């Protein structure tokens, strides 16, 4: 009987923990998270939550590179660079080593350039992003 009571207490404790979290942690936190995402925009929300820099660079690329273009990237690929391909879509993000120096297109898409040459995005040692050729 004592064993059954102990197990009932454990099961009840687990259920109560789950139920108690529904109003606050499940609903309120989710609503707040959605609001913060909408206010900050995808790039700033995701990178700041991940404690990474680079939101300004992503927003610059979104504003200055047409949607059908290719943006080149340079190693290292960790940190904020992991988000670049998803946040810049439908722009393709392509390893600059896979593109010949004199190429102007990749897979039929124009490669993004500026007056300073090809635009290349690179991860920094501090988890941010650097744009070459801006």
């Amino acid at each position, binding site marked *: 009987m004592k064993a*059954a009571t102990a*197990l009932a207490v454990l099961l009840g404790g*687990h259920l109560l923990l*789950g139920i108690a979290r529904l109003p606050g942690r499940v609903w309120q936190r989710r609503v707040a998270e959605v609001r913060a*995402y909408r206010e900050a925009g995808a790039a700033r929300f995701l990178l700041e939550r991940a404690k990474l820099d680079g939101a300004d660079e992503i927003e610059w690329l979104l504003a200055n590179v047409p949607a059908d273009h290719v943006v080149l990237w340079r190693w290292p690929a960790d940190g904020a660079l992991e988000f670049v391909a*998803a946040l810049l879509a439908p722009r393709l993000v392509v*390893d600059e080593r896979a593109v010949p120096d004199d190429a102007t297109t990749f*897979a039929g898409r124009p490669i993004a350039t500026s007056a300073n040459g090809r635009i290349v995005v690179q991860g920094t040692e501090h988890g941010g992003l650097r744009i070459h050729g801006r």
Partner: protein
Amino acid sequence: MRLDRVVTGMLLALAIFWIGASAFVRGDGVPDWWLPAALAGGLFTGLATGRGEPAATSEPTPRWASWTLAALVAVAFAALAYGAVATPSRHWDGAASFDAKVFWLTRAPTLQQPFFEAAGVFHHGPDYPLLQALLVAMAERLAPGFGRLVLAMLYLLLVGVAAAALRPRAMPPLVRVALTGCLALTPALLTPGGGAADSGYSEVALLVATTTIAGGLLNRSTLWFGLGIGLAVVTKPEGAIYAVAAVAVAFVGGNRRLLVAGFAGLLVALGTWSPVRAVLLHQPSTSLWWQGLAGATLACWAALAATERLPRPAVGRWALALAAPLALLLALPVIAPWFAPESAIGVYMRQAARWHQGLANLPDYLAAMLAYGITRLRLGLTFVVPLAALAIARARRAPLAAGGVGAFLGFGLVSTALPFVLSPEPDLQHHLRSSLPRLLLHWIGPAWLLTAALLQPWHDQDPPRT
């Protein structure tokens, strides 16, 4: 309409969808009618031919209990549906990896486009299995803006799988309802964060697969066992390891019917996934993977033949089961080159030759297991309850009827050490923090079904009330 038949129908629908989609996606694209056709086909088959186990007790479930559970699940489902649809993914892997695949597959559900085909394109986790991404993409094409509802529907399917798996168990209906509620209300499934059901990660889809496997073991359902194994392989890279663990459990248990079903699920999944994976990894030929499939088929036949020759009770099988992981560990440096270095498993295989150095990570891993599995309560008391039930069952000398599920859960929990023994990350604590909670999440379904199996003998022993 019986819940278990609907659930079986949904699991069949997922399998049918994947088998067709894996072929279509390598060609001109998955047709928009394929998702509804697979759903209709799976549900029809499940309802028409499903031989759901009869409920083990005629004692009716109190109506208040059923309605309370339904209301709680509805509140949770509503939160997940809102969270899934309100924005794209709001956490790391969901946004960086899964959303990118879904974006391109929604525009054109084919691999014949530069994002997947062209070497050099930044593609995070290129060889992650595509079942969930294809499901969301095809749903998005049918109902723009609502495709991510699939994520919340997978949560409902998970609850349904647990409820249907518990249905044939002889136990008081209230306990059955409570166990289903325990799984449904696990904090890590519902609290916003990486791995939550609406996060865009594939954790819940894989949890559906592991819970289906455990349900198959619990109720000796060959259909569920094979379906769960197949779905695990095409959902996440670690699903293949779980599938092999499930087959090993059937082998050790000497259950030939389950073993055949497990092999069928494994081989169909490998046969459909391998050619897709070859395209994603830009491999010029699929011959390496077909060789692997042929090798796996041979191993399956050898294991089936061995089940007839090995002694029973299975001392020999247990010895083999214990020797197998050791042999695998020693063989790692040999098989490592078979995995592409950029693949999800390949990044760990690069460390294979130094696995013995990785053993030094075990103390940190065990401390993290305690924190993320128990003390932080992210999983509630999921792993405490079966331990308590086991201790009490031992003390009462109750017969244990949980061998298969217990072994599967044991294999699974031990397998969570592998990524940290072979960790490619210089920052082990970061790796533990970001990965271990999600790996543990894959095992909460089997843990609750194990609890059910451990509780059942108590019910059997209790004298009938007069």
